[in-house]
């Protein structure tokens, strides 16, 4: 493995800007790595044909003395639901196979402007529905820690690509945990920014009121760099917050938790939580205390209803968001004699099981007669969860929990057991319902299986910087204890 692929994004950007290495070399090293390991990982659905050319443009800019942007020459892997000009966008679905968007998402445009090299589009659960990437129409991605395990999901391709050193940075989206859970089970860092802090324009919608684009990276500082570069107000997204981006990069550099008040969510433990996950989580809490944080336990009594509320709200929104895929204007069209039949057959042929389950579930929840009992009630639960967070954040600066109740699970184990699959997002869902910020940072390996465990940190709306203070402090302390980054222990890949 070329050592350029083991560098952090911060290091690469500095090296390219300083002329120590060219963007072309950086890109070539990552393309070679992709070539070498993709057969094992299956993280990418598409590798950018123009990556080398884009890198040469960066080098030409540097030669001309022009500024490169904060991510100048740094490869970024992009979850395949960001609309990108020049690359297909499939959302992991058969129904969008070969679709080339005629427009660019705000975030990928910003990254291109920041000098990033969009190196390819990553695999995902179909339309971001899942926690394993097994719901991709293009085959599952594999966890670089153990190829027979899932990399989490739905941003599993992005997490696997970063963990396999195919890219230092990746974009994901998090609707119920789809960045944090794969980051946790792949042993990397992943952030769900404050809802409205990162633009959804050009991000194919799963559940509009919950979807949040965010960064995945191997280090907390790298995640902060991508977080900062992708964020900020976007007039094309009505739900985008017109406020300064929280100082996440400065916070990651500060890496100090002395005096911070940290609350352990008491609801997120007990039955269903893997012992090794709790062991590592408790160690992380002790570590935070040793770094000067004040730790207390906080009860958020409505969090146990977050999961059922989520599985009403998200399917309701997705049943409507996915209605447009009907074979009339783009995408897969089945052959039939009427428009109505063409729609029904195209949708049946184009969507996988999980998409169908959720479409039917959402259609049910929104039906007249059921609306108040299901969708309406779920929206009230959402209010109660926001109130729980508000009350908790009056007492503490951040809340912590395990990122997921278990480590990665074997491919196939939960593939046709939706309820078991849904449990992977138990701890992450409340922040999606409330719209606040949360991060997953590695906190060790579960003793029983040697797979990574994530520490989940939740902060109030627009206090994303606190995540990076805590995350960077934990990362620094653990790495000094371990003597190396956790990921260097991943031995799943034969290359």
């Amino acid at each position, binding site marked *: 493995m070329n050592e350029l692929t083991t560098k952090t994004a911060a290091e690469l950007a500095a090296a390219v800007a300083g002329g120590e290495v060219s963007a072309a070399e950086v890109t070539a090293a990552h393309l070679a790595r992709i070539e070498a390991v993709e057969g094992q990982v299956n993280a990418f659905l598409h590798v950018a044909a123009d990556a080398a050319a884009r890198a040469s443009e960066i080098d030409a800019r540097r030669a001309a003395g022009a500024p490169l942007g904060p991510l100048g020459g740094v490869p970024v892997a992009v979850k395949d*639901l*960001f*609309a990108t000009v020049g690359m297909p*966008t499939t*959302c992991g679905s058969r129904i*969008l196979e070969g*679709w080339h*968007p*005629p*427009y660019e*998402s705000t975030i990928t445009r910003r990254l291109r402007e920041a000098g990033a090299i969009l190196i390819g589009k990553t695999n995902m659960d179909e339309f971001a529905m899942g926690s394993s990437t097994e719901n991709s129409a293009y085959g599952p991605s594999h966890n670089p820690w153990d190829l027979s395990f899932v990399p989490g999901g739905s941003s599993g391709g992005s997490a696997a690509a970063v963990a396999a050193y195919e890219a230092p940075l990746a974009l994901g989206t998090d609707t119920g945990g789809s960045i944090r859970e794969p980051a946790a089970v792949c042993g990397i860092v992943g952030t769900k920014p404050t809802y409205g802090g990162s633009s*959804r*324009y*050009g*991000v*194919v*919608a799963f*559940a*509009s*009121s919950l979807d949040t684009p965010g960064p995945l990276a191997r280090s907390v500082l790298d995640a902060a760099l991508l977080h900062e570069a992708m964020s900020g107000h976007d*007039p*094309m*997204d*009505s*739900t985008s917050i017109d406020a300064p981006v929280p100082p996440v990069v400065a916070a990651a550099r500060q890496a100090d938790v002395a005096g911070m008040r940290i609350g352990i969510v008491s609801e997120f433990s007990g039955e269903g939580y893997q012992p090794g996950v709790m062991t590592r989580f408790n160690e992380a809490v002790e570590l935070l205390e040793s770094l000067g944080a004040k730790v207390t336990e906080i009860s958020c009594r409505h969090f146990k209803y977050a999961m059922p509320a989520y599985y009403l709200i998200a399917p*309701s*929104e997705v*049943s*409507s968001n996915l*209605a*447009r*895929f*009907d074979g*009339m*204007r*783009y995408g897969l069209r089945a052959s039939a004699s009427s*428009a*109505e039949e063409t*729609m029904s057959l195209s949708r049946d042929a184009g969507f996988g099981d999980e998409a169908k389950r959720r479409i039917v579930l959402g*259609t049910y929840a*929104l*039906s*007249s007669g059921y*609306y108040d009992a299901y*969708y309406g009630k779920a929206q009230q639960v959402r209010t109660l969860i926001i109130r729980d967070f508000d009350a908790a954040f009056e007492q503490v600066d951040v809340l912590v929990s395990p990122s997921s109740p278990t480590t990665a699970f074997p491919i196939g184990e939960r593939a046709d057991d939706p309820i078991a699959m849904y449990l992977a997002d138990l701890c992450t869902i409340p922040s999606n319902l409330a719209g606040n910020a949360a991060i997953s940072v590695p906190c060790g390996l579960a003793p029983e299986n040697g797979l990574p465990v994530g520490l989940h940190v939740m902060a109030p709306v627009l206090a994303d910087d606190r995540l990076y203070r805590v995350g960077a402090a934990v990362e620094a302390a653990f790495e000094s204890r371990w003597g190396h980054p956790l990921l260097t222990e991943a031995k799943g890949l034969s290359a």
Partner: protein
Amino acid sequence: MTVTYEEALQKYEPVFGLETHVELGTRTKMFCGCPTAFGAEPNTQVCPVCLGLPGSLPVVNQRAIEFAIRIGLALNCSIASWCRFARKNYFYPDMPKNFQISQYDEPLCTDGYLDVLTGGETVRVGIERVHLEEDTGKSLHVGGATGRIQGAEYSLVDYNRSGIPLVEIVTKPVPGTGYLAPEVARAYVTELRDVLRTLGVSDVRMEEGSMRCDVNTSIAARGSGAWGTRTETKNVNSLRSVERAVRSEISRQAGVLDAGERVVQETRHFHEDTGVTTSGRSKEEAQDYRYFPEPDLVPVAPADEWVSSIRASLPELPSARRARLISAWSLSELEFESLRNAGALDVVEATVAVGASPADARKWWLGELARKANDDGIEVSALPITPSDVARIAALVKAGTLNDRLAREVIDGVLWGEGTPDEVVEKRGLAVVSDDSALIAAVDEAIAAHPDVAEKVRGGKVAAAGALVGAVMKATRGQADAPRVRELILERLS
């Protein structure tokens, strides 16, 4: 069973209501910056948002909200202090997202009214709600004989219209108008159209589809106090059709009830050519639109100051203008209606504003000029004559320089492009003969030529002088001032 409208009204009492969709005259669409011009080449005014491409997001056009509030205020509605858009979910090829962004249980404007004048009477039509939504694309149906959807082999969809802002204005049911129901329905749409035009929020062209009506009609036995099952007639796209659709639906429903059957609650289609409604295709499953709050848009909460400033900027509305003009010009409501129906309000008011009396202005615009416009098949306001010209002509008549017949010649001259009224009088030599000596000669000739008439006048039959006046006018080729001629005749014969 066929029942005439008159027979139907003897037994039944109708109730109607209207849902009117109006395309707003904003420069851009409801949720994206695509232009809204009518008649562009297909699929040239589209973008990821109005094509519903994956990943695209709507952003509300502020002007559309302002226009909807203007309409709400003009219709005496309450403006919501907080409301949301909702998704109306159903599948149809001309709807690119397979949901329509609309408003459901939180409309922007509620509970108003519009007073409409018909047959000299004012009827207050309640307004249930005014809400905003987006229009759909337009389909061209290919194959089959009629270009209609039925029997077509396939359809071709143009999304230029997709996303154009629409307001839907829904009346409350209007009971108690009896025989006049069809006329009141028409008068409501007419008044609404005038209000919208006055507000400058839409070009309200029914023929281009920028204003479209659905008519709800029901009937119940007279005196029963009950309301019948209503039908919703779609595709009613002219003022005349509104009236015909209500009339035809009342007759049809009376026939159904007389036959001992029940009126089915259904959608019906109005056919302009035959003036009747036919049943819409029955649906295999009851429609369930699964409304829910649009998560891609945040709530709209118009600030009081904004609403107040919009209220302050409202132009004078047709009803206020009606009250003002009826009072200022001493008109009856029927006289006002005839002015309005002739489309002459603006020109008459402008003519009065430059000095003509209201009576003169009405006389010329509703008389000679209305005839000319009618001959040419245009609106009076489109005639190539200005209110100032008409005021000048009226002034010349009043001064005795012209009489009515000469004035009509001057009007002809102006319409023919011969110049201002004064230039036409000059060029055509049309001034009234006001030289008494010339007139006296003509009067004496006329008396001499009609001794029997002169004798009658001398005998006190003053009315007989008319024949002599006519003779003098004929002799002077109309250029004499008839009242003066009459005076001279009476002087000579006294």
